[in-house]
Structure formats: structure tokens, C-alpha cells
């Protein structure tokens, strides 16, 4: 039950993109075309799950016993960068089709704050390994969902003749995200 609450909370109620403002750069940067949005969303989901699990183990079995918890920023960033590298190499060898689809987005993920943010939140909330994995998968799914929704709106309205020129592009995306954020606030009634 607790795991279910964490999953619903991370994906919908406290959606990391729409209510906590993590991962804004890819959210607005790659939401112009649906296929790039899908590629980015899936890469984030993939890397976030691995990175969270590894940072969790590293924090509890290396940093804490050594009394070096203050190094978590440096350590986590390095772990995320190496996970991204590893995933990239592994994918290139085994899943060629997936690599072709996600390849260009993987390096960008190193500096994606949603990954780093979620690893920090997992530690801050004292989640167990299982809870960490559930939270990360749901957070990634929530990111994917929000990205797909925003992309659908932007594809439809960015070149619509009724939209005034000063409103096109960024302002339109921001207002669409704001309205989506209001809608996601409605999920609070779920729990």
C-alpha cells in the first residue's frame, strides 16, 4: 500500500515536472516534436531508475560508513555521469534500435536536473531500496506523461493561425504547462 502511495504521488500528485519544476530544460526544449519527446522521456525513465538505485546503495554503503555524507553532491553527479556513459555503451552493443532512437538524448541527461533532483529526494525521504526504485520509475513515468501532453498541445497550436505572434513558442508552452499544472493539482483528491 505504501509503495502504491509513493507511485501515485510521484507520477501524478507531486509530478516532478509540473509541481516541483524539475527537468524544465528538456520539458520545454524537446517538446516540439512527438518522436523526440518520446525518446527523451524514455531515456530519462531509464537512466533515472538505474541512477537512483546506484546512488542509494553508494550513499548507504560507502558514504555513510565513511562519514562523508557531505560529499553527496560531487559523488552523485559523478555516478549519474558514469551511469549515462555505461547505459550508452551497453545500449550501443545490445539494443541497436533503441540506441538509434535514444542515442542523441543520452549525453544531455547528465545535466538534467530531474535525475539529480530525484536521487536527492530519495535520500532526503529515507526511502528503502525498493521504495527508491518505485519512486524513480513513477517519477520517470510522470515526466514522460507530462512531456507527451505538452508536446501534443504544442504540435497542435504552435502554428495555428489564430495564435498571435508574440504568444507563439515559449509563452504558449508556458501557459499550456500552467493549465496542465492546475489540472494535475486536481489529483490531490486521489489519496
Amino acid at each position, binding site marked *: 500500500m505504501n509503495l502504491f502511495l509513493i507511485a501515485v504521488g510521484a507520477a501524478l500528485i507531486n509530478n516532478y515536472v509540473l509541481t516541483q519544476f524539475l527537468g524544465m530544460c528538456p520539458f520545454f526544449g524537446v517538446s516540439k516534436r512527438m518522436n523526440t519527446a518520446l525518446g527523451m522521456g524514455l531515456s530519462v525513465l531509464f537512466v533515472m531508475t538505474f541512477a537512483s538505485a546506484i546512488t542509494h546503495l553508494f550513499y548507504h554503503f560507502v558514504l555513510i560508513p565513511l562519514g562523508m555524507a557531505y560529499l553527496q553532491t560531487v559523488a552523485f553527479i559523478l555516478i549519474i555521469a558514469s551511469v549515462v556513459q555505461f547505459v550508452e555503451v551497453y545500449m550501443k552493443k545490445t539494443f541497436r534500435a533503441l540506441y538509434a532512437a535514444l542515442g542523441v538524448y543520452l549525453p544531455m541527461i547528465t*545535466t538534467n536536473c530531474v535525475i539529480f533532483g530525484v536521487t536527492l529526494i530519495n535520500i532526503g525521504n529515507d526511502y528503502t531500496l525498493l521504495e527508491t526504485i518505485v519512486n524513480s520509475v513513477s517519477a520517470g513515468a510522470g515526466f514522460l506523461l507530462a512531456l507527451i501532453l505538452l508536446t501534443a498541445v504544442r504540435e497542435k497550436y504552435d502554428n495555428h493561425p489564430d495564435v498571435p505572434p508574440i504568444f507563439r513558442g515559449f509563452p504558449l508552452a508556458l501557459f499550456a504547462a500552467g493549465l496542465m499544472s492546475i489540472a494535475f493539482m486536481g489529483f490531490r483528491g486521489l489519496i
Partner: protein
Amino acid sequence: MKYAKLIRNGIIHENPVFVQLVALCPLLAVTTSAVNAVTLGLSTTAVLVCACVVVSLLRKLIPNEIRIAAFVLIVAGFVTIVQLLMEAYLPPSINEMLGIFIPLIVVNCIVFSRLESFASKNTVLPSAADALGMGLGFTLGLLIVGVIREFLGSGSVFGFELLTDPSSHMLIMILAPGAFFTLGTVIMVKNYIGTRRGGSRR
């Protein structure tokens, strides 16, 4: 003279928030009040200036292939310093509000773009001036959004009550959607001024 120009460039012509549209996560998340906005802006500026100075000093020693990793380490080091200093000297309420956005300065796009495009190619003083300009430009952007949201959402500016009647407060402005709407409106106004002036700029 040259340095003043570099600083002004960061604040106005290449303002990271309104012109380059980068570093949106902290911009949207911490602007619920003007005080939070300025605190985060200045801590980012501090990290940016220190990191740019160090990278600029080491630019001939860092091999090109591992420069990103080196930049990450340098930035993460300074962020850890700022984080520990803030925990020690600032009131807990501010630390609680800024929360994970202090460690998240590490993955701030402004910091990386300045290290990569300016500090790794220039000498120390211009790099510091450029970093200071960009940092202040970022702080200015945070301040504008923060003041608008705080005024509309809780009727105060920098904590001073201006609208005392609670029914005139628009709660939505300090909640998540208000951040998107405020930034959207500010950029729209900027676009409008741009089209009025030059016509071609968007």
C-alpha cells in the same frame, strides 16, 4: 571599460532568463517570494564566478577530452561550499524553501554554458566579469518573477505587506501554475516590446 561591457552584456543583451531562456527549473521553483529569489540568484552568482575563475586559471591544464568531467567536479566543489555556508549562516526558513535547489546549482545550464563557451577560452578577469554579468542577469530575472508572484499571491514585496486584505490575494500565483503564467506573461511582454522596436526580433 571592457569589463563593464561584459557585465552589461550578461544583464541585458544576453540575459540568461529572458533572452537565452535557460535555467528555468530554479527560476520557476524558488520565485514564490522575492527574498528566496534573490538568495538563490546570489548563491548561483557566487558559484558561477568562483567556478569561472578556477576554470579560466586551469584552462591550459585541463585536457579537452575530460573537460566536462573536470568542470562538473569544480562546480560541485563550489556548490558544496556554498551549501555548507548557507546551512551554517542563513535562517532555517530560507534553507527549507530553497531545499534541493542549492545542490541543483551543479546542473544549472547557465553555469555550464559560461564555463564551456567563455571561461575555458578567456583569461581570468574577463571570465570573472562575464560570470558576474550572467549571474546578476539571472538574479534580475529571478527578482522580477519573484516580485510579481509575491505581490499578486501574498500581497507583499520582500515581506512588507502592501495588500492587507486576504481576499485580494491570488493564491494560485504562489502555487505551481502561477510560476508558469507569470513567466509566460513576462516573456510575452518582452516579445511585444521587441516587435514594437525592431519588428523582426521574436
